[in-house]
């Protein structure tokens, strides 16, 4: 599924996200090519942080870089920007631009495969029927289509340990709810447009919920605090409701 990509230069576009962050765009579509550029840039940035760098969020096609404008400006005053550019945004823009043009893409020919048990429909998947109706399918067909694919973890975001997955079939794509639900149970498996993912903790959200997993995706006492990581490959394994509690207990006991 993943093909090694080598050579080439990452292209990018940048724009501000407020006055203390900058979004670096690597492409317009979700694909593995763009994903590898995102990964390469993130890895490089984290191992070569600039003065004032606070954090970054890699997403499907972009990386957002958070910085402290005061620290950036102070460095700018003394470094190669002195006298010229006073705007912290412009200083960071220059730094990142240089990083991007100098970037080589990551090669990869190995990845982890993680099997995630999911109980579909019923009380665990209140939107399964809506997804089926929207796509002119039976609920059982939605389950088959959803669980037979291999999914690439593009990024972790939205909630701790929440994987954004690529590779979902267009046949079950369904738009988000118009108004987000105020609370969705931990472990819920959802669909939003062409994306699918799993909620690791209880949180508000607008996704269509088709099932639930007993697995813990958020591991606050571990480093990294997430079961899944960018680059992993996921397979969903349908389980019947009576096995849900068993799996839950099994995983818990395995941990202790």
């Amino acid at each position, binding site marked *: 599924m993943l093909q090694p990509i080598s050579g080439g230069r990452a292209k990018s576009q940048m*724009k*501000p*996200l*407020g*006055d*203390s*962050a900058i*979004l670096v765009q690597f492409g317009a579509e*979700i694909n593995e090519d763009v994903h590898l550029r995102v990964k390469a840039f*993130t890895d490089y940035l984290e191992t070569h942080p600039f003065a004032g760098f*606070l*954090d*970054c*969020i*890699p*997403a*499907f*096609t*972009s990386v*957002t870089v*958070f910085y402290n*404008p*005061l620290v950036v*400006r102070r460095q700018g005053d003394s470094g190669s920007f002195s006298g010229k550019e006073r*705007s*912290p*945004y412009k200083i960071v823009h220059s730094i990142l631009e240089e990083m991007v043009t100098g970037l080589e893409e990551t090669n990869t020919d190995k990845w982890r495969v993680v099997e995630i048990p999911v109980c579909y429909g019923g009380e665990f998947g209140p939107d399964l029927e809506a997804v089926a109706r929207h796509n002119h399918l039976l609920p059982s067909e939605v389950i088959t289509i959803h669980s037979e694919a291999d999914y690439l973890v593009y*990024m*972790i*975001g*939205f*909630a*701790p*340990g*929440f994987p*954004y997955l690529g590779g979902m079939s267009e046949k079950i794509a369904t*738009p*988000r709810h*118009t*108004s*987000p639900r*105020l609370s969705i149970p931990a472990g819920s498996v959802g669909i*939003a*447009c062409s*994306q699918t993912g799993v909620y*690791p*903790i*209880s*949180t*508000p959200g*607008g996704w269509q919920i088709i099932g639930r997993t007993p697995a813990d995706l*958020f591991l*606050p006492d571990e480093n*990294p*605090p*997430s079961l899944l990581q*960018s680059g992993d490959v996921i397979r969903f394994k349908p389980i019947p409701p009576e096995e849900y509690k068993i799996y839950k207990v099994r995983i818990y006991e395995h941990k202790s």
Partner: protein
Amino acid sequence: MSIKVERPGLLTSLQDLGRYGFQKYGVIVSGAMDAVSLRIANLLVGNQEGEAALEITLVGPSLTVKEDLFIAITGGDLSPQIDGESVPLWRPVYVRKGSIFSFGACRTGSRAYVAVSGGFAVEEVMNSKSTYLRGGIGGFKGRALKAGDIIQCNKMPKKSEDLFIKLKNKGGFHPFAAADWYVNPASVVNIKNKTEIRVIRGGEFDHFTPASQKQFFEQEFKITPNSDRMGYRIEGRALKAEESFELISEAVSHGTIQVPKDGNPIILLADRQTTGGYPKIAQVITADLPLIAQLKPGEKTRFKEITLEEAEQLYLEQEQKMQQLKMGLQLKKHKE
């Protein structure tokens, strides 16, 4: 040194300046909603400005002070009292062992901060003492305070001892004694214009209809009851995107104003999720985030557009004022 929680109040939790470095695992930043008030509270009692403090929301707690404490209360005026007597905000206060520290009516703002000299004795989780309420980690046992909780405080730094002793002597047998000087928050934050929040255009501003763009800056928005540390849901006439589209999920920040399909914007705040898929119409400037934190449901506000350069300038000016304040406090402690 410790404090016992008799009544927890509406939502009282430990927050510092947030948890950075783990957003790529989806671990949110959290932290104080009004970071300026938090920092000033800490500076007033001789702490590092980013030390964890109690963030108190609308209805404050009732606490028994088990040992002499050196505190400062900043942020909104939630009628703090010690043994029933009104305590002034924005200044160092000595509190006598055995006193009851409580709150009354919410007079101005909506969130108060209480810093204790020496800070609170809780473990850091992923480099921060902020409470991630939904994630159940950080702060005091990963949650808001409950009745019966006992929170430990660290020993106060040496540089605070002189002022503490001076106030203690001034207090005598009285339950508390406050310094006769204070900080005026209006000298750091744009409190005078708190119902005109300054923003810059968001990444998807151009995706909204011209009528909606105009409307966003002209109309008054009301803060709905569905508002909390994650974000404030605000209401006005619904805003419309040019065509129906959904963004590929990407990062959001503190102050991002996103607009779901129903057209009612959400201002994302301290406990926001790391990424979102709704179009972003604007971004609240960092310098005005403390103002948002002090608004409460039912109140109204407007948005005023400024440029990124102006937003950066305002941020840097605010930091300069904080720096002057820090120097003033250092010299003050020398004098005392």
